[in-house]
Structures are given as structure tokens and as C-alpha cells.
């Protein structure tokens, strides 16, 4: 720890809300990115699920919009320590998207336009825990926040909620994604503060 700077308080960190360890509350919505913002037009957008046997399911934007969608409110926890509570979204549950997939795979790798990837157990995408979201706060999701559509898996750190999601590969073997391959925790549970390898 560095020397204490007299009188320095930093961004507001305590509050009445219960946050995962090490997090602080924000009211804005920080934009983080590992590269330039992909600009994907809905007319060329495609979401693809590929199983471990090579079975492929795809949706173009029209087909995706025709699926049953739901509105939901969740808290977001970013590994860079900010948390944003009670965010409202509209999206299609992964239970719906995975309903037709025949798989015995245990792992998933989400891929984004622009090349980003992130991995998680398939079980963490099911049972109402994950969505492909296309509206935030009642409006179409903007490109800087991951639009046209992003993955949302709020029970894990936000780096698992891949922006500009393009597809999910179901895999028999776990494959670490972009950050998981360089020090970030393979699972990423904010409540157990699983930020880095070995945490």
C-alpha cells in the first residue's frame, strides 16, 4: 500500500447498498473496451450457436427479434471495481436460444465481433442466469455498450458479459478467453472476489 495522501477520499465507496467485496458504486455507466468499437449493422448481424459436434443454430436480426424476450433488472459488477445497480434490460434468455441445441458439453466460449472472447461453464448460461440483451434502459443498446446485442451474465464479473456478441461455442474442453488467458480468474464470482488466477 502507498503512503496515505492527507485529505484524499477518492470516489464515493461506501453506501447503504450491499456490494461484493472491493467494489464501489457508480451512477454513470463506464465504457471499457479492448479495441475500437465494432459497428455492426442489424441487417448483417448474425448470432450463432455451435455445439461440440458441429451442430449450428443461427439467427439473423429478424429471427432473433421474433423470439420471446423479457425485461429484467440486474446489478453489474466490473472487475475494475465499479458496480452499477438496478440496471434494466430487455433480451432473449439463453434458455430459449439453447433450447434446440443437442449437447453434452460442459463449457462455453462466447465470441464477439472484433475478436473478444470469454469462457464460462455452460451451466452458468442456463436456468435464467443469462441473456442476449438488445435494449438497455428502455432504448436500443448503443454500440459503445455492446450493441446491437451483448451477452449478459450478471452473476459473474462483467467481463464475462461479452459486448457485441456474435456467437457461443459449446465445448467439451474449457478454453480460456481473452482476459482469462492473461491472469483473470477462470470463473469470476464477484461475491467470492475471484478476480485473478489463484484467487
Amino acid at each position: 500500500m502507498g503512503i496515505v495522501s492527507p485529505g484524499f477520499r477518492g470516489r464515493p465507496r461506501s453506501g447503504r447498498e450491499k456490494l461484493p467485496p472491493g467494489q464501489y458504486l457508480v451512477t454513470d455507466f463506464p465504457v471499457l473496451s479492448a479495441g475500437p468499437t465494432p459497428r455492426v449493422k442489424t441487417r448483417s448481424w448474425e448470432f450463432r450457436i455451435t455445439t461440440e459436434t458441429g451442430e449450428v443454430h443461427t439467427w439473423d436480426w429478424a429471427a432473433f427479434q421474433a423470439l420471446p424476450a423479457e425485461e429484467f433488472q440486474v446489478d453489474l459488477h466490473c472487475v475494475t471495481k465499479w458496480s452499477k445497480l438496478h440496471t434494466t434490460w430487455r433480451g432473449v434468455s439463453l434458455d430459449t436460444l439453447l433450447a434446440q441445441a443437442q449437447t453434452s458439453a460442459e463449457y462455453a466460449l462466447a465470441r464477439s465481433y472484433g475478436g473478444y472472447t470469454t469462457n464460462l461453464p455452460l451451466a452458468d448460461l442456463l436456468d435464467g442466469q443469462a441473456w442476449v440483451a438488445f435494449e438497455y434502459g428502455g432504448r436500443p443498446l448503443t454500440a459503445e455498450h455492446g450493441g446491437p446485442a451483448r451477452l449478459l451474465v450478471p452473476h459473474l464479473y462483467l467481463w464475462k458479459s461479452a459486448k457485441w456478441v456474435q456467437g457461443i461455442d459449446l465445448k467439451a474442453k474449457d478454453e480460456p478467453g481473452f482476459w482469462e488467458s492473461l491472469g483473470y480468474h477462470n470463473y469470476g464470482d464477484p461475491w467470492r472476489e475471484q478476480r485473478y488466477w489463484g484467487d
Partner: protein
Amino acid sequence: MTTHLDGNVLAGTFGVVFAVDITTAVGQCASCGTREAIAQAMVYTDAPGLVARCGCCGEVVLRVTRSAGRTWLDMRGVSYLELQTPGE
């Protein structure tokens, strides 16, 4: 922030682990073969780590992540680094 900074911003992070200033080193992009000073890379800093992209083709040239006490460095995007090491 969705724009990038210059490679100079890597100097602080790298200066903690390397004794040589990496930003003046010339690297060859493993994707497109362009040679440029690391300072000329496009660096995205608003992320769980630092991501430097080739100023020419935009592919990732290097990545750095840090926790308290550990630093991880992925330099697969650079074929080689040419550093000034006078006196060697």
C-alpha cells in the same frame, strides 16, 4: 473511453518490470509485419488490462494485466523487439 492513446502510456507499466524503456523499442507486428516504435501503437487503457494494437493493421500486439503483486504480459503479437542497449 472508446478511443485509444499512444504507446507512450505503456512506459509506466513496463518501467516497473523492465529496466529498459520499451516505448522506444521497435517491434514487428506479428500480423502484418509492420515495424514501428511501441510508442506508436494504439493503446486501449479502459479495460481490465492494457491492450496495444498495431498502428497499421489494428491487431493486438501486446496485452498487459496486473493484480496486486503480479503482472502478466502477452507479447505474441510482436515477432521481435529491437531495443537500444548501448554499451552491450
